[in-house]
């Protein structure tokens, strides 16, 4: 399988959004072609103004097996959500 092009993760900044957002992945021989292919695969309908590509192999992901120790502890700590502060009525847009 070494003849196959590597996989790239594609991030696109849309017209409206501030941050690049993961949109999917594709194959390409190198970063430059990955950008070109992303342009053709993911921005055909005017979705983006900027593209980032990252080799999938370069992404380190959390392990699904560690879900409980990783995320469970945060579940029981409701006080971390800023919902206990009474807001004055005059303050809008919060």
């Amino acid at each position, binding site marked *: 399988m070494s003849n196959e*092009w590597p996989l790239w993760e594609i991030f696109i900044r849309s017209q409206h959004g501030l941050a690049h957002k993961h949109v999917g992945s*594709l*194959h*390409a*021989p190198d970063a430059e*072609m990955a950008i*070109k*292919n992303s342009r*053709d695969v993911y921005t*055909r309908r005017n979705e983006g103004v900027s593209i980032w590509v990252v080799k999938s192999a370069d992404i380190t992901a959390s392990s699904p097996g560690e879900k409980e120790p990783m995320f469970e502890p945060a579940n029981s700590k409701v006080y971390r959500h800023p919902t206990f502060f009474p807001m004055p009525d005059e303050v809008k847009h919060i």
Partner: protein
Amino acid sequence: MSSDRQLFDYLLRLGDSPLVLSQRLGEWVGHGPILEEDIALTNVGLDLLGQARLWYAYAGEVEARFADVERGEDALAFLRDSGEFRNLLLVERPNGNYADTMARQFYFDHWHWLLLAQLAQSRDACIAEIAAKALKEVTYHLERSTDWVIRLGDGTDESHAKMQAAIEELWMYTGEMFDADEPEIALATEGIGCDVRKLAEPWHRAISGVLAEATLVVPTATWMQGTKGRGGKQGVHSEELGRMLATMQTLQRSYPGAQW
């Protein structure tokens, strides 16, 4: 002063090459070497189809000025026979392998870009506007096909050999791109059309630079197809165009006036 009839014929020349090439690229759908490339190539084809539509819409308007007909883009694309097509012989060449398809695209894109850059300055506002719009798309086409020629040329032994063979095989179809007949020269003199003879030198310089980078040898053969007023632009085509049109036109021929 050139006539509307000449302008009409010139507009067909401008529209037929992108249409025919678009249909050729469409033949790759589902057969591309890799999914991403399949989509990318089809995008180029769709750009070219859009450009052909704009040229045909304008051609139809011009034709209505001197003939008692109203032919829209569908009639011009689907109801003309091969002898009435005015495209370059290069773009009707069959797809071959991927190197063949890229060589054809590479030769055409470089010429197309130079042509549109000139036409964007046309005294005919409609021509200038269509050319300016198409130029942006073709700038990307050019980048892509150039990139592929370099990658395949400067790639493996096999890709190098195939790319070199493709470059040589299609070379004899490049001369027609720079051959101008009288009506074309007349339109160029009036500042409406482009004198393609002047594009030969910048084209040759551009492709030579790319081929050198791709470790490919620039062909030196001098005999060219379709020049001296007997080529695709005058309606003298290879038999491959007829077969291609049969596929492309079958729906409109079988169900006249069919709409999506």
